[in-house]
């Protein structure tokens, strides 16, 4: 059975503004699925519908086979959510935040304390566990929020941009904790607009653009949908070359990204337009996103 099923989910508000238009995807148990897309693409609305905060206008969602509207209490028993802009109370300590949140979900004090200790070690918050959140850095506060959710051991975890605002070291700690979590049986649906993050931690990526799922699959399969293998970034100092007609070339003003089937072809093209090469690399998920969403439009 799939852990999460989103079938043509849509959220249109009474004033006509859309939050999501047509979102369909499935996720396997014990995996990390990343909803990837720019700001305003519909990622958060999708998560909020699946987490039973918003009622879909159209379509349906299933969590471990339970309908998010009809079986709302069965769904809620099995989920936990880390909202995008959650702000952990500055009057709490991390210890109180995690322990209190678990108790509020029905845990006994002893179990809650044991689990809290585990996640403070996992997310490297042990030394600050009894310090007021007011005295923690932004990154540490974010990790406290993540610890509150991961400690629930819920079957399905929704994390809406859990690493936004974190430095590289902070992101690494969260990524490691997320990969650990799925080994213990949870399924994670995570949103981000960080392509690198998606490439590193996802088992599956769902591209969302303008409220619609445009592609989904494993990172390598999404990249393979792009008919190019390499990209060369070159200077376009004279700014005289206009390549908007050529879908192999992405015009950034004083720089160009040239896509090619081979490194040689890319270099030849750069030479042809007489431009100075900055870098040559294999294409990434970011390029797949730009290609599959028609350059993010």
């Amino acid at each position, binding site marked *: 059975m799939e852990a999460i099923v989103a079938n043509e989910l849509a959220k249109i508000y009474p004033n006509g503004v859309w939050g999501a238009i047509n979102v369909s995807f499935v996720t396997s148990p014990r995996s990390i699925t990343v909803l990837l897309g720019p700001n305003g693409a519909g990622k958060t609305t999708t998560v909020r519908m699946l*987490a*039973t*905060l918003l009622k879909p206008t159209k379509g349906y969602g299933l969590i471990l086979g339970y309908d998010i509207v009809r079986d709302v209490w069965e769904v809620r028993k099995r989920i936990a959510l880390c*909202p995008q802009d959650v702000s952990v*109370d500055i009057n709490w300590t991390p210890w109180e935040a995690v322990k209190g949140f678990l108790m509020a979900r029905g845990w006994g004090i002893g179990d809650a304390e044991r689990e809290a200790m585990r996640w403070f070690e996992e997310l490297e918050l042990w030394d600050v566990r009894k310090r007021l959140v007011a005295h923690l850095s932004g990154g540490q506060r974010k990790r406290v929020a993540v610890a509150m959710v991961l400690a629930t051991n819920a079957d399905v975890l929704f994390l809406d941009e859990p690493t936004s605002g974190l430095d590289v070291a902070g992101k690494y700690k969260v990524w490691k904790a997320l990969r650990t979590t799925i080994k213990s049986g949870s399924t994670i649906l995570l949103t981000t607009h960080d392509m690198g993050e998606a490439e590193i931690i996802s088992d599956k990526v769902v591209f969302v653009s303008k409220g619609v799922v445009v592609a989904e699959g494993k990172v390598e399969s999404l990249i393979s949908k792009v008919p190019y293998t390499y990209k060369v970034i070159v200077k376009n100092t004279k700014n005289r070359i206009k390549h908007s007609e050529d879908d192999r070339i992405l015009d950034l003003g004083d720089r160009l990204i040239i896509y090619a089937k081979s490194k040689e072809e890319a270099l030849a093209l750069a030479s042809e337009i007489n431009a100075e090469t900055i870098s040559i690399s294999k294409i990434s998920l970011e390029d797949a996103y730009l290609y599959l969403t028609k350059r993010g439009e």
Partner: protein
Amino acid sequence: MLLEALRKIYGIAYLASRWIFRQPAWLVQSVLRVVGFAILLYAWGGLEGLKNIIVAWIIGGLWSTGVNIVAQEVGWHRVSRLQDMLIASPIRPIHYLMGSFTSSLLFPMAGLASMIPLAFILNAWNIVLLSLITGIVVLLISIMIGLAIVMRVERPVNVSAITNPIAWPLVIIPPVYYPAWILPEPLRYISLIVPTSASAEIVRQLAGLGVSVNILFPIIVVMIWVLISIVLSSRVIRWGLE
């Protein structure tokens, strides 16, 4: 099942009460307010005035607890997104409300504790008991009205700007700290159409602190307010799936 429900309520109360323990000056303020009003009412009304402070503090305190403290607590949970985390979980609205309410009881309890010597000196335990029983109904009304406001207001960060002007004037202007019988007759009825003064009037009459109008009037007023608050809150309060 019951144990789990109690754990959930305790968990919410534990989280919601942290700030009170971190900033106990709020409780001190609560106690000092009782002492201050006790001196004021004694100066103006002697021992009878002091008996009125018991009625006023319990009714007024429980009213403020619901419409102000619980509403602000819930408003902060909305702003901080903690409420979203609690909705997407096995926590039921009743656990959440009971937990938030329990933590906010620290304020009226601090006031009540400071009134115990007064009740002892005046031998006014019947007034305390009657005020607490009537106060539960006031609390019910105020929680539902407070929630109806805070769950719907677009910017809950400013909820105190709405709840304070509702909470405080309804305690200080109508006859809560003073008996309604000091007002001229037509004004008595008008002043008793709000839940705070109507409840205080019921307690005063039952405790033998004076009669302003037929007791049925404040009883009917309170019942109507219970009905209004139930209808209002059931129409606007949502726990997710909006």
